[in-house]
C-alpha cells in the first residue's frame, strides 16, 4: 500500500467517524428536546408534586392516572400503526415475575415515601421542590446498592418465573389491534368512572 492509498483510507475513516459523532450528537439533541417538551407537559398538568402523587396513591385525585392512561392510549395506537408499516421496532422488556413483581412492589414502597418517581424527581427540582434533591441522592445510592447485590439477585429472583419478552397479544393469542381496542375501552370506562366520582 502506498502513501496515497493510506491517506485515502485515513480520510475515509475520518469521514465515517464524523458521521458517527454527528449521529450520536443528533441522538443527544433529540433526547434533550423530547425531555424538554415532556417536562412542559408534566408541569402544566401539575403532577410533579408530592401532594399530587400521594393523592393518587391515597385514591383522592387520579390526575396522574388520567395523564398516564391517555399517554398509553395514544402511544399504543401510534406505535403499533408505525410498527405495522415496518417504521419502528418494539423494545419489549422481559417478564420475569421474580424481578417484575418484587421490584415493582418495592418501587411502590419507595415511591410513596419519596412522592416522586425517577423522572419526575428531576422535574420537581426544576419547580424548586428541594426535597426531590434528597430523593435523587437516595436514588443514586439505591442504584449503587443494587449494583452490589446484582450478583446474588441475577441467580435468584431474576431467574424466578422468567417468561421472556411476552406481550398481551401473544398471551391472549389475538391480533394486537384487538388488545389495543380492549385496553382503550377499559381506560375510557375508567375515565368516565373517575369523572363521575370526582377523582
Amino acid at each position: 500500500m502506498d502513501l496515497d492509498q493510506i491517506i485515502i483510507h485515513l480520510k475515509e475513516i475520518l469521514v465515517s467517524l464524523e458521521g458517527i459523532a454527528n449521529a450520536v450528537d443528533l441522538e443527544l439533541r433529540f433526547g434533550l428536546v423530547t425531555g424538554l417538551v415532556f417536562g412542559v407537559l408534566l408541569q402544566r398538568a401539575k403532577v410533579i408534586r408530592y401532594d399530587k402523587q400521594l393523592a393518587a396513591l391515597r385514591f383522592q385525585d387520579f390526575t396522574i392516572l388520567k395523564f398516564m392512561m391517555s399517554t398509553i392510549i395514544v402511544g399504543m395506537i401510534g406505535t403499533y400503526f408505525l410498527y405495522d408499516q415496518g417504521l419502528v421496532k418494539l423494545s419489549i422488556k422481559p417478564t420475569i415475575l421474580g424481578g417484575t413483581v418484587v421490584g415493582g412492589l418495592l418501587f411502590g414502597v419507595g415511591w410513596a415515601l419519596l412522592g416522586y418517581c425517577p423522572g419526575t424527581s428531576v422535574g420537581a427540582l426544576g419547580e424548586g421542590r428541594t426535597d426531590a434533591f434528597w430523593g435523587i441522592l437516595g436514588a443514586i445510592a439505591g442504584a449503587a446498592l443494587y449494583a452490589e447485590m446484582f450478583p446474588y439477585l441475577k441467580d435468584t429472583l431474576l431467574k424466578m418465573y422468567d417468561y421472556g419478552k411476552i406481550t398481551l397479544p401473544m398471551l391472549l393469542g389475538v391480533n394486537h389491534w384487538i388488545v389495543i381496542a380492549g385496553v382503550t375501552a377499559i381506560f375510557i370506562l375508567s375515565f368516565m368512572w373517575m369523572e363521575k366520582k370526582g377523582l
Partner: protein
Amino acid sequence: MSKVRDGWNPYVLGGLAGLLSVWSTYYTGKYFGASTTFVRVAGLAEETVIPERAASLEYLVKNAVKLDWQGMFLVGIFLGVLLSAALFGEFKFQAVPDMWKRHFGESAVSRGLVAFLGGAVAMFGARLADGCPSGHGLSGTLQLAASGFIALICFFVGGAIVARMIYGGGGDGS
C-alpha cells in the same frame, strides 16, 4: 374534600405526551425511560471515588458511564419544567410539601431523610423490576408488554399500601 384543580386538562396533556413518545420512537427509536441513568450516575461517582470497586461490579460495567439519549431526556425534563414553571409563575422553593407539613410538621430534615430513603428503595425496586413508571408504566404498556402492565399495577399496589400506612385510611382529603 377540597381539591385544587388548576392544571391543564390531563387527558389532552397525556395524549400529547403519547404523540411525543411516538415521534421519538419514529425518529430515534427511543422509548421513554429514566432509571438507567441513575445507575450511570452511581457508576460515575464510584469510578471517581473507588475505581477498583466500580470496575469489579458487573452491573456498573454493563451500564457503563456515558451521556446518552436518556441522560439528555432527563436534563430536558429538568429544563422543560423549569422553563414552564418560570413562565407560569409557579417556581417556588419548597423543602417540605404541603400534605407532609399538615401531618408531620415543618422539619426539612425529617422530610429529607424520608425522601432519601424513599429514593433508595424506589430505585432499588426499579432496577430489580427493570424499569420505572416511564420505562414500564408508559413505554412498556404502550407496546403491550406483559411486564409493563404487571409492573405498573405493582407500583400502585405497593405505593397505595405504604401511603395508607403513612397517612392512615379515611378520605379526609388533607
